């Protein structure tokens, strides 16, 4: 009997030891990596790589990967090899936080690109900030992430380690309102959102501006992001007599919503933010989506001279998925981290200092370079200084740029 329990304890100890060795050997692998090209710096990526939003997430991952590969090829930071460590958050705040913890634990990670969703970012910011690990999001547009919950009245920087290359909803919503009211001559809008940080924020800023311009809100609705049946809402939209629908949310719901609104007999365009600016939206919404509009941050990557190289390189790299809506911003986010690392390494005589994370975070504030999407630099809140936006419309089954402009307030 006694012997048996002894065997059990030994077995447990052995198993524990094995697990520990396994961890150790993985760390060891990384060490041998760095032996080859000097130091290896890992850039973490957090995005939804599976699920409804994977089209956007994979574009983010691939574009960040392209930035790392480009830097390695050019030997941009001498003695430093960049690699990407991508984690899937499935658009869930809880997964995002787990990923953040895991990335913080990996000492080679000096910066993180992501996440896609503002709601996920909320769960990650503090974890990164505590570790002084810099995070650059290519896609978060929630104003509160940088300017605090009272951003309408009193702006307060939230986290010193959080930056983004995307413009915020504070700009995107009003930009859409101005376009609809002044250019498209729409006066009666039905506003729908999905109650998430991104969707509700967008719908809120849109509503304020549209009212200010003199437009009329003929109805509001909040959908359930898990739902696929919006027929009841579609019928309400038709009843309201609105001449346009504004939707704050993302394409998995926006597509079916647009389709069902048109099917209910209301032949009016659905307008949304960058969350619906994706080819999948058109696939989901079907042929009737012609004329639907979306605003997106920046100017169309395809139209920018600065992005030609990126588009060509992306194609040449042979990624299976499109770079999607945030590809250019993801590349710029990763490149901003690379620039910050370069600054830190150069200041330290060509070597990474011991407190590299804190130094990279500090260097990020002053990063400035000509990126894929134009000039990339950050203001005192960590927001992008580039405030360009574009309205896109669905034409012949694809998004086509309607109007680019800079929001001035």
């Amino acid at each position, binding site marked *: 009997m006694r012997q048996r329990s002894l065997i059990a304890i030994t077995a447990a100890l052995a198993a524990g030891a094995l697990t520990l060795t396994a961890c150790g050997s993985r760390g060891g692998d990384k060490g041998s990596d760095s032996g080859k090209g000097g130091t290896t710096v890992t850039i973490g990526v957090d995005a939804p790589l599976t699920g409804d939003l994977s089209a956007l997430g994979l574009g983010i991952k691939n574009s960040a990967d392209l930035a790392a590969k480009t830097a390695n090829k050019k030997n941009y930071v001498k003695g430093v090899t960049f690699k990407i460590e991508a984690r899937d958050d499935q658009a869930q705040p809880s997964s995002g936080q787990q990923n953040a913890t895991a990335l913080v634990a990996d000492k080679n990670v000096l910066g993180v690109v992501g996440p896609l969703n503002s709601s996920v970012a909320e769960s990650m910011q503090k974890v990164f900030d505590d570790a002084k690990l810099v995070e650059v999001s290519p896609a978060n547009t929630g104003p509160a992430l940088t300017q605090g919950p009272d951003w309408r009245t009193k702006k307060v920087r939230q986290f010193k380690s959080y930056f983004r290359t995307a413009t915020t909803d504070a700009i995107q919503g009003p930009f859409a309102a101005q376009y609809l009211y002044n250019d498209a001559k729409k006066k009666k809008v039905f506003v729908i959102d999905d109650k998430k940080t991104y969707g509700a924020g967008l719908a809120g800023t849109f509503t304020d501006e549209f009212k200010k311009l003199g437009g009329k809100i003929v109805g509001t609705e909040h*959908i359930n992001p898990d739902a*696929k049946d919006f027929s009841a809402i579609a019928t309400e939209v038709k009843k309201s007599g609105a001449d346009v629908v504004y939707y704050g949310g993302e394409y998995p719901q926006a*597509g079916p919503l647009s389709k069902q609104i048109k099917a209910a007999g209301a032949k009016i365009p659905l307008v949304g933010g960058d969350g619906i600016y994706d080819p999948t939206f058109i696939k989901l919404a079907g042929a009737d989506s012609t004329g639907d509009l979306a605003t997106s941050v920046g100017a169309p990557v395809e139209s920018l001279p600065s992005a030609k190289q990126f588009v060509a390189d992306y194609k040449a790299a042979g990624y299976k998925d499109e770079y999607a809506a945030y590809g250019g911003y993801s590349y710029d986010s990763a490149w901003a981290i690379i620039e910050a690392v370069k600054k830190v390494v150069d200041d330290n005589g060509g070597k990474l200092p011991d407190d590299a994370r804190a130094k990279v975070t500090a260097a990020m504030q002053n990063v400035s370079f000509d990126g894929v999407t134009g000039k990339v630099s950050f203001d005192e809140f960590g927001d992008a200084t580039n405030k360009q936006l574009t309205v896109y419309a669905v034409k012949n089954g694809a998004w086509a740029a309607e109007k680019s402009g800079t929001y001035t307030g």
Partner: protein
Amino acid sequence: MNELPQQLVNGLLLGSMYGLVAIGYTMVYGIVQLINFAHGEIFMTGAFGALTVYVYILPGGTSMWVALPLMLIGAIIVAVLVAVGAERFAYRPLRTAPRLAPLITAIGLSLALQQAVWAWYPEAKSARTFPQIPGGPFHIGNVTIQTGDIFLLAAAPISMAVLAYFVMKTRTGRGMQATAQDPDTAKLMGVNTDRIIVVAFALGAAFAAVGGVAYGLKYGQIDFRMGFILGLKAFTAAVLGGIGNIYGAMIGGIVLGIAETLATAYISDIPGMDKFGSQSWADVWAFVLLILVLLFRPQGLLGERVADRA
């Protein structure tokens, strides 16, 4: 313009789909007292079965009128195979185990099926588009009905009629009734209860497959998670209608669908209630209705007294 008839039709359509899936919950529960939480995933595999037939088996450009019956058959075959396999390998070994064991197994199976489709079905990591029936919508007075919904409007009552005939008139159907009343006595009377249980799983799966095809036609897309929420709603519908009663499942589904639709459309018009109106509150109102029904009729709308069982 009065849109009430339209909202009722919206609710009826949504509810018919709940009902088709709820039948599977209620039949299995009626016979083996198992809440088959993997049933929502059987609905999902059925939809993917139909998609497989259309995309990978039929030649491109096949007319939907030719393809639809074949897709339906494909959906039913896949769903029935999955359900019968689940019964044989996951539930039968646990038939004499405590009731919690098969329940947990069902939840595990549900996750396993979702992840299997996610991992191995081509491009199923995000939603896949489902073929649509061509043609514009139909207008009856104020009411608009989409072509995709015609299938559901026809399939739900036909399925119910077939099921009623089967349960009431055929030998196997009467065997099912007998097994539901008292499995041991039924066995003594010469009913092959093992076979009856397999038939119950298979029938439930076939109805779920019809629902899966209807879902694809109605919403134009299917994904690996589509069965989860719909399965929960269908289970709610089965409880609302009286679990164990096949007519109750359909009635419960329709009541639930209409309740959700009307809650979305009208609650916000009540003065002071505009905060509680939108679709995100519709589920809350649907469950309020469920609680009210269960308070006054614990056995559900059409349920029989099952106090000796529960």
